[in-house]
């Protein structure tokens, strides 16, 4: 595969770097990324999403009643799927070290509490998190590519990505160029993802669609396929800096996209809703959607994550309530 818009000085390196080699793609998907016109036709040809029907189904799934052993299992799974996040201008080494320590041992008083999947920080904070997490299995995710707006040139985005990886990031969360997407310049968005993916090498890449800026579910579906075709290991809803961030219906569309991708290619890609998921009840609704839209195989931190900060403490409190039979309150979980 080559870049869709041809190579230029600023786009060198964006060659053949998808998670799945183009040769393994079915012929119609190879055709879809032949050139910019093909990509545009493919994305425009995706079936539309009817908002009323989507939201109805999504609300219907949210009425599943999850209790007892099933709830405890869901809480543990949700904890193990958290990308514990701090993305503030005010982040300091102390704050990041504290967060990383929490990621390792979310609930020091209760042995057996799973650790989270990863911490998620800005590139300049990666080395700081890496010190604390060395020797653990917890991932270090770094946002990159002029997060959160993505408004910069590709060389700067690539440099941002390299900084993250050289500092020890094991996962990169990039943002797509929403301006280019909304202008219909799908090739530019595609090429940037391909370029970043190549800069990532074996580091897993999360492609943030920033669905709150895309406006329609049709666009969410197109952006999801764009991210998958360009080689994103994850498609991720949001930066957390725009409202609305993750919603159930949007996540539903993205789960359907990875399911459809699997049905066509045999390969499972991951989904990460981020922002706005604050309590256990909400997290469980997402897990129900994962199970019933994508399938049981996606109930795995490798294939589904929550981008969250305050969610973790609610999960811990609910976990204590399930295992100890009573609520303990926010004073018993750590504030980091």
């Amino acid at each position: 595969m080559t870049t869709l818009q041809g190579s230029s000085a600023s786009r060198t390196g964006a060659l053949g770097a998808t998670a799945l080699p183009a040769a393994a793609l079915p012929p119609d998907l190879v055709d879809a990324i032949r050139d910019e016109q093909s990509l545009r036709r493919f994305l425009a040809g995706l079936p539309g999403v009817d908002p009323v029907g989507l939201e109805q189904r999504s609300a219907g799934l949210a009425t599943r009643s999850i209790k007892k052993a099933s709830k405890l299992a869901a809480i543990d799974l949700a904890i193990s799927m958290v990308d514990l996040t701090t993305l503030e201008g005010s982040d300091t080494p102390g704050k990041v070290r504290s967060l990383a320590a929490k990621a390792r041992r979310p609930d020091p008083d209760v042995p057996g509490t799973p650790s989270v999947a990863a911490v998620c920080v800005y590139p300049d904070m990666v080395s700081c998190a890496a010190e604390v997490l060395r020797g653990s299995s917890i991932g270090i995710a770094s946002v990159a590519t002029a997060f959160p707006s993505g408004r910069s040139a590709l060389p700067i985005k690539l440099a941002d990505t390299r900084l993250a990886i050289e500092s020890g990031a094991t996962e990169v969360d990039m943002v797509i160029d929403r301006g280019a997407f909304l202008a219909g310049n799908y090739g530019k968005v595609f090429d940037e993802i391909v370029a970043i993916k190549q800069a990532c090498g074996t580091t897993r890449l999360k492609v943030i669609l920033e669905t709150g800026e895309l406006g329609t579910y049709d666009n969410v579906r197109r952006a999801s396929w764009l991210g998958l075709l360009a080689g994103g290991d994850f498609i991720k809803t949001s930066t957390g800096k725009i409202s609305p961030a993750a919603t159930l219906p949007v996540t539903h569309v993205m789960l359907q996209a990875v399911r459809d991708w699997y049905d066509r290619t045999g390969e499972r890609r991951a989904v990460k809703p981020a922002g706005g998921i604050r309590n256990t009840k909400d997290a469980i609704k997402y897990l129900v959607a994962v199970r019933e839209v994508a399938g049981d195989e996606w109930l795995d931190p490798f294939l589904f994550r929550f981008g969250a900060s305050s969610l973790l403490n609610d999960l811990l409190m609910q976990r204590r309530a399930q295992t100890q039979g009573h609520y303990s309150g926010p004073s018993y979980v750590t504030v980091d």
Partner: protein
Amino acid sequence: MTHLDWEYAPAPESAAIGRIKERYSMFVGGKFVDGRGEDLKTVNPATEEPLAVVSTASTADVDTAVSVARKAYDDVWSRMPGAERGKYLYRIARGIAERARELAVVETLDNGKPIKESRDGDIPTASAHFFYHAGWADKLEHAGYGPAPHPLGVAGQVIPWNFPLLMAAWKIAPALAAGNTVVIKPAETTPLSILVLAEIIADADLPPGVVNILPGAGDVGSALVNHPGVDKVAFTGSTAVGRAIQASLAGTRKKLTLELGGKAANIVFDDAPIDQAVEGIVNGIFFNQGHVCCAGSRLLVQESVADEVLAKLRARVSTLRLGDPMDKNTDIGAINSREQLDRITALANVGDEEGAERWTSPCPVPERGFFFPPTVFSGVSQSMRISREEIFGPVLSVLTFRTPDEAIAKANNTPYGLSAGIWTEKGSRILGMASALRAGVVWSNTFNRFDPTAAFGGYKESGFGREGGRAGLGAYLQEEN
């Protein structure tokens, strides 16, 4: 890579909330009285265990009920100002809402439908029907039936077992709002929720005789609709019974509305929102175990997307959870009766014999109770019985078409005409199809959505007359100019 094997723990609603009594009686003249008919035992279709004993009406009880309804009409209800009638209807609406959880449990135990449907669908919509019609009671002169429309008198109403309380609300609310009194017969297999409604009506202090409820079998219904004291007959049920009622009422003064069977076409074009169309197909035929007269029982899918739609449909149907209707996570409950289960089974077998390809959801089926797993027949042609006869169960017949004209021709090629669905992202096609389809309700990019403000009713052998909305009032009013 190992994923979590995550099962939902059972989440059963408590049967005790239904406060099911050992014995229920008729409701006549504002009192609960035993009828002179033979007692009937109603069973829980999910367990086949008896739920309660219900006293039934005899022909003499029909006489009594019609005469107290007449007296209530003459002395009280027809003279009462509309605003006052409205207050009673509001009270009943609130009563249903207040006892919603209890009613949902009663409905699910007696009918077999999943608790999530009775809880989120039947009961709130029944309450909404009373709220909606309460608002009309003092505004009838603005309803488009002349400056001073009159009520008709005593309405004799017969309702089916698929939405016991909701059908009662559809029938009673507009009749009362318009100033009529009511004698109503619930279905033999589902008499309980309407008798809880009777308690709510009694608690609302509705004048005695305005609503009378006579449980019983078809003979009670027949005596009721043929009673000379009845001015208006409203029936929801099978086309065969509807036809018999229309024949027996011919030449009488009685006004008649019928809401009968259906074999609705759910039409999916290649430019449809496919994932939501799949949802709509599922909702169209598997909602309420397919016991829906307007069910989308014939899927007409454009040939160019048929394989894709069928693959997605099978995957989606496989996720439906069939089982204990009282479990909040159950999507498909029990078939209402042994008789209906036998009928569904027999017609599905005919599908096999006719050469259609049967696919059955791999879901586990409980050993006890009346259950039929979601079934999809593909390769169905217009000539097969499974594409012509109403199965009234969770069985979908899939046919294909090539052009919009062919879709219209096939969709209309049925004696029925209750509902239809159109799935396309193209607005002009929706409008064109909707005007070409001979069906009373046409849904576009959705299915099985009901609202008290929207008229519902059929074309052809699906019946006549409308229920709901302004049009529905016409069935209970005499236009006066």
